């Protein structure tokens, strides 16, 4: 073999294409960059793009195809948790490497997966802290799309809020189906909930397509960021580029990266992105940064190990640090999550976020939430002596691992 | 008026019409006879353009119809009353009749009153869905509908099937009148006020000048004898005999029409 193949497993059609296509382009750009620098281990990198078409079983099948047919050294891919769950057994069986770039619900740590997006403690908890401390929010609407990520995140948040003394009657939880488009009643209800005289905020884990009609309805029913701010965990620059943001100014999002961050690394990254896409209007977003970090970590680890062999690479990658785009360093932790800063931003009229708050230090991704009773005692540590993704510190047992 | 030469038609692989030729003179009233399944309906559909033909030529008023689509043939003045009535079932009676207006070519919006004079029952049922009518009522509607487009050649496929006897004889009258209008007085019963008289007279006049040529498929011989002046007999996809009504011998009947 005279090239090193890199699998790119992002949906290019179907419902998730909206989000994932950009990540495919990002990967192509990063690989292109690397090749310009002379490739890896003296060989050029060769991207292998497949389209799992937003179809979850197809993700598994395509992952298998990448690993057995194309023999890729690593896969960068997936967006939704279910697609990752679908791919997981395949990469474990065939001992592949998967770099997963999206914020997610946690409660997982696989030997073969590296989670470069945020765990709940790197996004949700700091955001709620901000609302509580800075905006004096007393009443909470937890609105989400009905699937595992919002469910888990909200569960964690609910536990967290209660631990901070918030009463049941001050928490409203609402779930909607994927792609929900008629938000009239729900927004009206939020409005009512928020008119009880206490500062109210919405914590939104609403996903993808449902956001546009949601924000439009918010705007039309006159809910401004000042009356009831919405802090979203799944709305980034990319999503905003499809919305008329004028009425949304001041609503919030919590991420680990904003395009507006003023650092030289970021400026360079944006310039490269614009050059690569030949489109000066293309925005960058958090999962792109995650791929940027993940890819660079993998490159560094391969160089360190001197091989693309998955076992060697996963051993080498732990502890590796690469610069992120917000001016700090991202480090791969033994639990296969990374360190990240947490940024809270407000939506601006131009569809960008303005950082209004930021953690002082980097936050370490926690695979197993401390706010869920069942996972409190579980830790992930892929270094000896534990070498396990779900090690129960009470029973001293490593559960469910096949190796 | 109409001539067919060396027509061959196939349903898939089965050869239904064999080198069929016939001639219908202007102003004639021709009865096409033959046993079940010999291809009478098939022939009429070919003439109307509803079935593709494999080879052969169909000429009408000295122009070839072969390349024309069915609706163009209708516009040239060929009216068709199909076997099995083929009413538009969910259209009202009135709407069924109106479908013929476009092909009239004279922009008229209304249904000619003469239709209701011929078939008074239609007038009382204008708002009823065509599909709800009784079989016989539908048959009357089908004929009325063909008359709306004021045909020069009227093709009727078993038009009295399922019609009550007194109306059968009326239909016979209608056909005779339409056909023999040329140079003769035509009277449709006058029941209407004088306002419509003018229109009707105009129609009658046009009609008289035109004289509708009739091609009729019919099995009932007494009816045929009354309305047709010529006959054609078909067997196994071919025309096997023809002539004036007087030439229809017992022998021909026995040979081609009995089982």
């Amino acid at each position, binding site marked *: 073999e005279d090239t090193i193949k890199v699998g790119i497993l992002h949906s290019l*059609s179907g*419902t998730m*294409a*909206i989000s994932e*296509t*950009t990540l495919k382009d990002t990967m192509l750009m990063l690989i292109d960059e690397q090749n310009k620098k002379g490739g890896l281990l003296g060989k050029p990198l060769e991207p292998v793009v497949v389209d799992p078409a937003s179809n979850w079983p197809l993700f598994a099948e395509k992952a298998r195809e990448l690993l057995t047919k194309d023999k890729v050294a690593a896969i960068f891919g997936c967006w939704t948790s279910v697609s990752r769950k679908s791919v997981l057994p395949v990469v474990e069986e065939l001992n592949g490497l998967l770099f997963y770039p999206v914020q997610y619900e946690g409660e997982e740590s696989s030997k073969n997966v590296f989670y470069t997006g945020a765990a709940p403690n790197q996004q949700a908890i700091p955001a709620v802290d901000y609302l509580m401390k*800075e905006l004096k929010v007393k009443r909470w609407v937890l609105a989400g799309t009905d699937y595992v990520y919002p469910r888990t995140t909200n569960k964690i948040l609910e536990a967290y809020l209660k631990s901070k003394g918030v009463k049941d009657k001050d928490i409203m939880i*609402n*779930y909607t*189906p994927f792609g*929900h*488009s*008629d938000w*009239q*009643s*729900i927004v009206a*209800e939020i409005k009512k909930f928020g*008119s009880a*005289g206490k500062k109210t905020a919405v914590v939104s884990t609403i996903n993808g*397509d449902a956001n*546009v*009609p949601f924000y*439009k309805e918010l*705007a*039309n*029913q*006159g809910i401004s*960021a*000042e009356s009831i*701010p919405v802090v979203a965990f799944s709305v980034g620059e*990319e*999503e905003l*580029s*499809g919305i*008329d943001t004028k009425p949304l100014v*001041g609503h*919030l999002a919590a991420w680990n990266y904003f395009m507006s961050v003023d650092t030289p690394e970021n400026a360079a990254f944006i310039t490269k992105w614009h050059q690569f896409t030949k489109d000066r209007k293309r925005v960058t977003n958090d999962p792109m940064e995650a791929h940027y970090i993940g890819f660079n970590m993998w490159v560094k680890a391969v160089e360190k190990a001197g091989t693309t062999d998955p076992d060697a690479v996963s051993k080498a990658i732990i502890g590796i640090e690469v610069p992120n785009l917000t001016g700090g360093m991202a480090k791969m932790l033994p639990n296969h999550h990374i360190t990240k800063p947490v940024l809270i931003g*407000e939506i*601006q*009229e131009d569809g960008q976020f303005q950082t*209004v708050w930021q953690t002082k230090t980097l936050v370490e991704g926690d695979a197993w939430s401390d706010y869920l009773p069942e996972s409190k005692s579980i830790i992930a540590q892929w270094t000896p002596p534990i070498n396990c993704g779900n090690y129960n510190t009470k029973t001293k047992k490593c559960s469910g691992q096949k190796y | 008026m109409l001539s067919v030469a060396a027509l061959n038609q196939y349903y898939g692989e089965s050869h239904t019409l064999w080198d069929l030729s016939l001639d219908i003179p202007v102003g004639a009233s021709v009865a096409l006879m033959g046993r079940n399944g010999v291809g009478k309906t098939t022939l009429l559909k070919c003439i109307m*353009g*509803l079935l593709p033909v494999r080879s052969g030529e169909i000429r009408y008023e000295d122009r070839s119809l072969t390349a024309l*689509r*069915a*609706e163009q043939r*209708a516009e040239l003045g060929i009216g068709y009353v199909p076997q099995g009535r*083929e009413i*538009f*079932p*969910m*259209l009202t009676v009135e*709407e069924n009749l109106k*479908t013929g207006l*476009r*092909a009239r070519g004279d922009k008229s919006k209304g249904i000619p009153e003469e239709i209701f004079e011929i078939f008074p029952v239609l007038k009382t049922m204008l708002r009823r*869905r065509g*599909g*709800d009518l009784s079989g016989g009522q539908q048959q009357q509607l089908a004929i009325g509908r063909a008359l709306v*487009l004021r045909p020069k050649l009227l093709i009727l496929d078993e038009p009295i099937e399922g019609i009550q006897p007194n109306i059968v004889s009326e239909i016979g009258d209608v056909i005779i009148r339409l056909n023999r209008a040329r140079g003769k007085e035509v009277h449709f019963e006058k029941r209407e006020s004088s306002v419509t008289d003018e229109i009707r007279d105009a129609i009658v006049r046009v009609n008289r000048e035109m004289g509708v040529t009739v091609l009729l498929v019919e099995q009932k011989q007494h009816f045929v004898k009354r309305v047709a002046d010529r006959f054609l007999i078909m067997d196994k996809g071919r025309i096997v005999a023809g002539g004036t009504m007087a030439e229809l011998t017992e022998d021909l009947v026995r040979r081609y029409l009995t089982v």
Partner: protein
Amino acid sequence: MRPLIFGMGRWCIAMLIMMMPGFCQAVADSGESFAEALVRLKEAPLTELGEAVDRLAETKDPRVVPVLRALLDGRLYYRKDDGHVVFGDPAEDGLAIVDVLDEQALGIVSKFELKKIGINNALRTHLRETLGRLELAVEDPAQRLKAVEAMSKSLDDENLELLRARLDVETDAKVSEAIKTALALADISNDEKAVRIAAINALRGSLNPDALNRLRQLLEKDEAGNYLEPDSDVRNSAQVAVKSIESKLALYGAVETVFFGLSLGAVLVLASIGLAITFGVMGVINMAHGELMMLGAYTTYVVQQLMPGHLDISLFVAIPAAFLLSALVGIAIERGIIRFLYGRPLETLLATFGVSLFLQQLVRTIFSPLNRSVATPSWMSGSLEINGALSLTLNRFYILLFCLLVFAALLQVLKRSRIGLEVRAVAQNRAMAKAMGIPTERVDALTFGLGSGIAGVAGVALSQLTNVGPNLGQSYIVDSFMVVVFGGVGNLWGTLIGGFSLGIANKLLEPYAGAVLAKILMLVFIILFIQKRPRGLFPQKGRAAEA
């Protein structure tokens, strides 16, 4: 510099009305100077920006209001090289800037030379309140109303004083009402029982949520079980007032739910009415119907891109454009594919599914897979405020109207023109229609074009509500078929009534069952309903239909 002069004028008028003659001249020499305050504003970190704003306001300089407004609107910058604070307005290739201190236009500069003075939500609220106080006397009553509302959020003595003063001279009824409510809210905390009761009675009919909250508080008990409001007379009046407000709210709530239902219904009707023609009348199972809507939505986007300065009229251009485009594409589909499939209706499903895949990928290739941002014209933004408890969102309201309009127009076309009759004849018996001289090909193409064009128009409406992206069509196709079938295939009225009833039923269920369960219940309802009426709400009747 129009805004500035304007603002200064207003400022002076305000002061005059407040009967503080000479104030305008007096400002210059009090405390910190305007320029100094401005520098503080520029240099303050977000956390201290609020204080900087207060300082600036205290200078009472006429330039304060425009500066604060600009700050609120995100138009306030400073130059990176010399630190001049400037107003910036978008211009070609950058921003046109104007010095704040001396109103000098400084030309057009690139974004990178400037740094925006950013604010956050807390600050925004603060700014609005500050501006409210400063702007309580502006001419525009709507703006005054906003100012009063902003001030009502923090009813300190200073604000109350200003409001009282304003009430005496206020001419606008709505503003007066708002001020009275604010004052009454303050009076509820008054020590004197009579004042409290009077305040409560004043609030009895108010639909202001703060009023209800405040009144409810009077009825609450503390931890020890004692009422927060010791006086039982006061409590009784509060009780009466709360009851009266609540019953009003319930009524308006019901009206609101019906409106929600109607507007959801309107979307359903719009999405399905084109299908009611192509599917209901022509019998073509057009799986690409959703994509034809998508084309309409993208047309809106393109139109808005082509006429950037004319957002408010863009929709009036987009509607005919979308109709034409979708109709043409529809006709192309009909001529190219469907016409070979008449008599094989189920095959149309297969081919049009192919078309829908094709169109989706086409827009993905042309416009990228990302959603496109379609702006809402100002006349469609916000809501129609009926009263404090009931407001109808304008975009929904117009879409409801639009839906009825489209329906009426379509009905007329099909009723009045020959094509309505002919298309039904063709659908019922193609061969016979031909034999009657109906040009079936032209009728098919035109009808399919009409149905498709209406889908395009529906797409324009949808672009105002939801994502404009490659998946737009898919998310509506199932619902559209459901509505057409529920209403009864072949009956336009069925589609209208069907869409509205499903919409209303959904909205009635949603508050109790939640969005997901409500949708499931609706589907189950449709399944059961079809058992009762196997041919939909308005079935085709007659012998032919039963056979």
